């Protein structure tokens, strides 16, 4: 066995998703509880706190430029006197939004490509898988930067670009799933009553292949947040004044001598959030496939930021 081939290995048994037992298994899983709670707290804080506190991310405190963390500004203020904590919350909204959107795009493209490739096989499969090989051979940073110069830097653009550089992993997973399922009786039965290929793919094969995609998708959200931060840090992602965890770190390096807290907090939020997504992803895989190995986290599939 090697970790790299795991995503392609056809799964022998059907992964079962039954909501009550899944929930029970997740609740017993320590990593799931820690990761899930952390994730819920972060999402709730970013979504609700700005509304409850009635704060403006662009509000300037003229008495505090680059002020260190204090009771008044718990994460300090930036070079323009804006409260870092408030900006971390607003930045979190953008980063999380990009993360989920990019995952949806990547898993969407990958799911369709993988299903088509696995179902039709032959030259279609060969061609699509070579495209996957091409996309996987170019180090991702090149693609991320080149595409962002070409496409743009809005929230949707950034999510689209990240999705365009990650669809290969879900594609391979989906292909393996569909290939292992397509000769099952219920698929043959569907075909025998005259169901079209599209119908078989959409109604029969894809819904039954969704479990490993959910696992991959969870981890992809975290990885997309990292990708966004890299792009924004290099100036090609979300553009200021809209805060994102990535672009908040761009200026941080300039002021690293005078305001180190600006470099610490947004990055810490990224680490905690991505860690939480990884833990939940691992736990989901364990829960969906209780007989399988425990998550080793060493999946190349989702990494390579």
């Amino acid at each position, binding site marked *: 066995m090697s970790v*790299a081939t795991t995503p392609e290995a056809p799964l022998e048994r059907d992964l079962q998703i039954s909501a009550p037992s899944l929930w029970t298994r997740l609740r017993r899983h320590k990593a799931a509880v820690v990761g899930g709670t952390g994730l819920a707290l972060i999402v709730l804080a970013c979504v609700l706190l700005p509304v409850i506190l009635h704060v403006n991310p662009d509000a300037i405190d003229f008495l505090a430029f680059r002020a260190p963390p204090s009771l008044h500004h718990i994460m300090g203020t930036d070079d323009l006197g804006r409260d870092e904590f408030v900006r971390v919350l607003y930045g979190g909204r953008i980063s999380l939004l990009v993360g989920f959107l990019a995952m949806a795009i990547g898993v969407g493209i990958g799911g369709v490509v993988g299903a088509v490739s696995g179902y039709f096989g032959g030259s279609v499969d060969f061609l699509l898988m*070579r*495209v996957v090989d091409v996309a996987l051979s170019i*180090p991702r940073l090149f693609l991320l930067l080149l595409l962002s110069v070409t496409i743009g830097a809005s929230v949707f653009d950034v999510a689209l670009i990240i999705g365009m550089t990650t669809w290969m992993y879900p594609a391979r997973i989906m292909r393996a799933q569909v290939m292992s399922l397509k000769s099952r009786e219920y698929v043959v039965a569907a075909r025998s009553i005259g169901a079209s290929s599209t119908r078989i793919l959409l109604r029969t094969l894809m819904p039954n292949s969704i479990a490993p995609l959910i696992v991959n998708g969870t981890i992809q959200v975290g990885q997309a947040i990292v990708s966004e931060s890299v792009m924004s840090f290099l100036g090609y992602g979300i553009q200021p004044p809209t805060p994102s965890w990535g672009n908040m*770190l761009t200026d941080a390096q300039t002021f*690293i001598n005078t305001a180190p807290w600006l470099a*610490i907090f947004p*990055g810490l939020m990224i680490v905690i959030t991505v860690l939480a997504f990884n833990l939940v992803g691992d736990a989901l895989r364990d829960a969906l496939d209780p007989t399988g190995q425990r998550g080793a986290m060493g999946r*190349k599939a989702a990494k*390579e930021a």
Partner: protein
Amino acid sequence: MWVYVARRLLLSIPVMLGITILIFAIAHSLPGGPLAMYLDTPTMTHAEIQHLTVQLGLNRPLYDQYISWLGKALQGDFGHSFVDGQPVLHVIGERLGATVELMLTAVIVSYGLAFVVGIASAVTQYSVFDYVMTVLSYAGMAMPVFWLGIILMLFFAVDLHWLPTFGMFTPGVPYSIWDNLKHLILPATTLVVYTLAQESRYVRSSMLEVLQQDFIRTARAKGLPERAVLYRHALRNALLPVVTVMMLDFAFLVSGALITETVFAWPGMGRLFFTSLQQGDYPVVVGIAVLISVVVVLVNILTDVIYAVVDPRIQYS
């Protein structure tokens, strides 16, 4: 076996062509076109830009430009930099050494440490050490590499003043290896932590898997000392999948190195790519991206071949 190598190389040709087409197409759809940098230059007249467009063949259809670019690239001519007129390969060559120095240091240290940490974790599974290492590697994997670089810089360069913040040499000081090494420590450490988090997990899980096997029990049962069981029996069998995955992670390592270079202003290819992209110097951008991607493909083939040669269980027909 040579048939296998030849077949792998043959199969990789469409992939390499695909890489060049994709990169070429994206680079040529940059807004303002490849000559965008000249459009803002006040000393350039419209006529001069027109002349340059024709001279560089940019008025021809894209596929036509691609074919002539590919024809020259296959002979090692990637065109000339827009910024200083030097051949692209020459520009890249000047930066190659710095990137190799950084990546090689990081690879040797991190892969070495990965084995130490991974084996120690596997042997003492569920101990405090294993637990701490697991938590650290989870954290390491969740960390954007540039942020790790900034934090290390903040701590060791800004606060403690132990090490220089950026660059490869101290400007104005005659070259010395010691000076170079001092500059290397922070970027290399960044890259080491970034890869170690991942690679030590591979070693750990591979070792754990092998340690469960029957032949290990047999080795212990016949009274071999634990050291011999670990290194002569377990590690040798755990090595192959680990080395394979490590080599397949080459593209991942390249991305990490490129980002690390931009954080520490390390004058390697990553930084060159980034500045060239900002300057719209697209022959250099295309050259770097294509060359590195081709290297990735070759490394992947090499990995498969090594795997097939070393592991007698694999048939390469």
